[in-house]
């Protein structure tokens, strides 16, 4: 090809890059605006229902009063007030607890994701293993996590170094929730490789490992990331629930248990805790979404 044609191609590309950059910025502002608008609308809906039902005394589907629906400003004020006398603000307390839970959830997420993917990869390579194990893997998820949490705590804690006592066991409970979607989707994803790509690799006399690494693994990524998005929020739920039977007070689970007991007196504290817990889940989800955008290269219309 002549150099002038090559120049034309490069000019075309840099123009394309500029347009993409600008349209991306525009897209980001657009999305941020949309999200802000949605949040405002939901808050308005909450407070609107609150005001109208209080004013009219309507009781269906449920009445609004200080216990069932604290005012928005009551909740936000609770963040600023000290949780207990002579202590830092509730917000600061909750953030610390959220960070503790985040540590458990993140460890559980990583543990569950690695174990889940390894399990999926093992099953993908053996129909026999698949038939033998898949029913039990599905069965494992029908056991309520609260029913197995005490056993996990007793089994796992003695084996952990002192720095991981308590939260390490919660991470394992969290991993119990996260490995399942990852295992099932990895299995599907690893088997989703185009048979013609496998034929091409065969023509190169590629080893099983090369095929796994160069074809099956990249082909599985859209599936794996769909699972990781589910696992991200599940890991937070798993960590919070795992804290309940562990008797841990340092995380959001402990806070929820605590504020539950005082709900009739100070409902806004449980509401505030729930807001922080859901924000933590959203942060986890967005982190996975960001990683997916960075890692998965796909035709735009084929992005999962």
């Amino acid at each position, binding site marked *: *090809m002549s150099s002038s044609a090559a120049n034309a191609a490069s000019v075309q590309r840099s123009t394309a890059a500029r347009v993409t950059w600008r349209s991306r910025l525009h897209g980001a502002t657009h999305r941020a605006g949309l999200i802000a608008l949605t949040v405002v609308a939901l808050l308005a809906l909450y407070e609107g229902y609150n005001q109208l039902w209080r004013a009219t005394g309507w009781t269906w589907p449920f009445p609004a009063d200080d216990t069932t629906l604290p005012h928005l400003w009551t909740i936000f004020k609770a963040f600023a007030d000290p949780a207990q006398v002579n202590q830092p603000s509730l917000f600061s307390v909750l953030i610390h607890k959220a960070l503790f839970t985040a540590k458990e959830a993140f460890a559980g997420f990583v543990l569950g994701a690695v174990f889940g993917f390894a399990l999926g990869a093992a099953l993908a390579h053996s129909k026999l293993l698949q038939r033998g194990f898949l029913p039990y893997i599905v069965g494992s998820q029908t056991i309520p996590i609260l029913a197995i949490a005490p056993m996990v705590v007793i089994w796992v804690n003695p084996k952990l170094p002192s720095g991981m006592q308590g939260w390490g066991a919660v991470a394992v409970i969290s991993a119990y929730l996260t490995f399942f979607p990852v295992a099932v989707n990895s299995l599907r994803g690893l088997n989703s490789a185009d048979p013609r790509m496998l034929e091409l690799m065969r023509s190169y*006399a590629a080893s099983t490992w090369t095929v796994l690494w*160069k074809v099956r693994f990249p082909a599985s990524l859209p599936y794996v990331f769909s699972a990781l998005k589910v696992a991200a929020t599940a890991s937070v739920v798993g960590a919070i629930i795992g804290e309940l039977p562990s008797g841990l007070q340092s995380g959001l689970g402990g806070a929820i248990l605590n504020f539950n007991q005082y709900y009739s007196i100070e409902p806004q504290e449980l509401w505030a805790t729930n807001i922080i817990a859901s924000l933590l889940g959203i942060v986890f989800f967005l982190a996975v979404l960001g990683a997916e955008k960075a890692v998965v290269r796909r035709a735009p219309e084929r992005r999962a």
Partner: protein
Amino acid sequence: MTEPTTVVSVSGVTKTFPRGNVTALQDINLDLGAGEFISLIGPSGCGKSTLLRVIGDLVEPTSGAVTINGKSAPQARTDRDYGIVFQDAVLFDWRTVAKNIELPLEMLGWDKAKRRARVEEMLSLVELTGFGDHHPWQLSGGMQQRVSIARALAFEPALLLMDEPFGALDEMTRERLNLELLSIWQQLRSTVVFVTHSISEAVFLSTRVVVMSPRPGRIAGIVDIDLPGPRSVETREDPRFFELVTEVRELLRLRGEHLLPEEEAAAAREDA
């Protein structure tokens, strides 16, 4: 001119698929000389794609043997003696164009600098210089197929297997790529086995056209293409071109006319 050395030798190859008890190939004998461009043509279900896959050791023959450069087909595959191009480009979405072409070179353990240099050569060979950083989905169907050809040729295999590589493209793109393929073939002097549905494509490209007939898949006849080279747009208007096209068509019709329509449909299903 000296007798060309045999690159591919197919002797007594039979392939039956146990499911449905289909005889895809029956007693195929075929020798390919170095630098030959051979087309396999025939109706759906005649086993032409199966024969290509047997040569590439992607399908194992039930009986008979294939040798490539004097080696068994499995050995030749392990030694990476051939490059292959499918009907669809089969490019990896998650790799750039350059990375797609590099794939076989990675298998061969070439270092990065050597791979880069070869990719640039290949891109220029298929006239895609400057597109190395694109992703496959950003290219048209014809460009994608050119990338696929560049990938197959990147490690300079002496043998190129092509399974209806232009079948999914429009007529105009196909004719342009036909010319490009011929010019690449003339530069590299590799041996090509080319599967196609198109009579004119087969005649235009080949040194020999192998006409196959279905159920069971057999060689119905071989037509030597004695068109003068280098071939160009004018070749398609040469009276000799039309004579050869007619000859191939006659062979196809002679062997195909005993087929009832439902048999043909069944054969097409097996082919798919």
